[in-house]
């Protein structure tokens, strides 16, 4: 896997109208990022901090200052699993995990190649499975993920074990009201599809 982004190559100027980016992120995440006073409580507890190129509080700071591109290009937003360890510590009641969600959505929309391609692909196949069935078919999503990542044989043994213990479903469970489910996805896809702006891998 090539790494399309050098984490050190961070834009040092705000991109265009600084408040515009801040407002968009605030809107998608339903947070008020201006409240952050950079106390680092969020970063202190993050289980993935050691693997991140920017600590979570720094990502928040970049958004405050309108450094959109830098915030959308970092590894951090992809490594975040949304565990809310940070959010439950923030003295200003900022849901940091929700901000990471919003930044991921914007990174995909802007067609910025994810520096964590395996994580990006994982989200892509899980999302596709939910869009197709309304429920997650883990086996299908995993097979697509493994094929896409060129790692067909990694995890074969635990995968087989899960199959034989009846932990993976061969047949998909489906939502019955397809029309209603279709309306949900169509509403958001009309604005901008999530995953097809970004197929350069």
């Amino acid at each position, binding site marked *: 896997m090539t790494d399309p982004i050098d984490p050190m190559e961070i834009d040092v100027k705000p991109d265009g109208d600084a408040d515009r980016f801040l407002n968009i992120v605030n809107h*998608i*995440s*339903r947070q008020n990022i201006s409240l952050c006073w950079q106390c680092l409580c969020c970063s202190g507890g993050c*289980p*993935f901090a050691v*693997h991140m190129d920017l600590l979570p509080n720094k990502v928040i700071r970049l958004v405050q200052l309108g450094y959109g591109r830098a915030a959308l290009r970092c590894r951090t937003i992809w*490594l975040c*699993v*949304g*565990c*809310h*360890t940070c*959010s*439950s510590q*923030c003295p200003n*009641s*900022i*849901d940091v995990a*929700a901000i990471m*969600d*919003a930044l*991921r*959505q914007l990174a*995909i929309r802007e067609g910025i190649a994810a520096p*964590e391609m*395996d*994580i990006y692909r*994982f*989200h*892509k196949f*899980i*999302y596709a499975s*939910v869009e197709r069935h*309304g*429920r*997650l*078919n*883990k086996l299908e999503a*995993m097979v697509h*993920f493994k094929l896409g990542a060129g790692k067909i044989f*990694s*995890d074969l043994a*635990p995968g087989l074990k*899960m199959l034989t*213990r*009846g*932990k*993976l479903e061969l047949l998909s*469970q489906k*939502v019955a*009201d397809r029309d*209603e*489910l279709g*309306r*949900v*996805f169509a*509403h*958001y896809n009309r604005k901008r599809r*999530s*995953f097809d702006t970004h197929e350069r891998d």
Partner: protein
Amino acid sequence: MNAIDLAYYPGCTLSSTAREIDAAVHYVCRALDIHLTALPDWNCCGSSSVHAVRPQLAVSLAARNLFQAQSMGRDLMVMCAGCANRLRVAANQLRHDDTSRRVNREILGATLDRDLHVFHLMDLLPHRLKEKPYVGALQRSLKGLRYVPYYGCLLAAPPELKHYPKLHGSMEAVMGRLGAETRPWGYQAKCCGAFLSVARPDIVAPMVDDIMDQARLAGADCVVTACAMCQLNLELRCQADKRMPVFSVVELLAYGLGASAWPDWFKKHLIDPLPLFRGKLSGR
């Protein structure tokens, strides 16, 4: 008898990789007169990757489930930490955020008008087991079993959910009734690695090993979880020499309440708990 009637949201995990937990949930609820009626046509709550890449779409997915519970006139119960958070966040937004109300009325033709409560089963169990008719409901004991309670992110939530009760101590309350011995440790709320277990196993494997090492140092024979994903990650990613049985707290409670299907549930574990279970509890 004061039955509790709830709508039940099984979710993608309990209806696939963790069917045994679903069976145990139903057994426990039947024994404690908690009547569960599954949502008629539930869909993914959005806690999978959907909220990670399209947060507001995830709210609409959750909304579709919440509206079904609203039509049933019941509060909702879930067994999964991720589902609970997603459904609660969505319920909050659908009640207090005008944009969300409008958009979801357009898409799904409904608004959330009741203060629909989303329970996690662990919200209910400690209290329920203390109520008169159920104090004597336990038929089997787990005396001799030494465990560490592992909550993972079940103890963490977004700030807007602060009014929901904290679940800290709920597993100890249930396991204490069963007679098991809690071993103290500091890893109760450590993250299990969530989906990075699949996408970046190189990061998650050492985290899981660390958790298992700490459990052993604490003097435990096993780890007890309240989340199917935690259980799967610990079992799947832990190194061979650090393996230790991992249980779901509901499986063990169902056993205590007299369920006969427990050997079938345990056979589904990736780390076989039967030797420990038989060894510790033989003759009882």
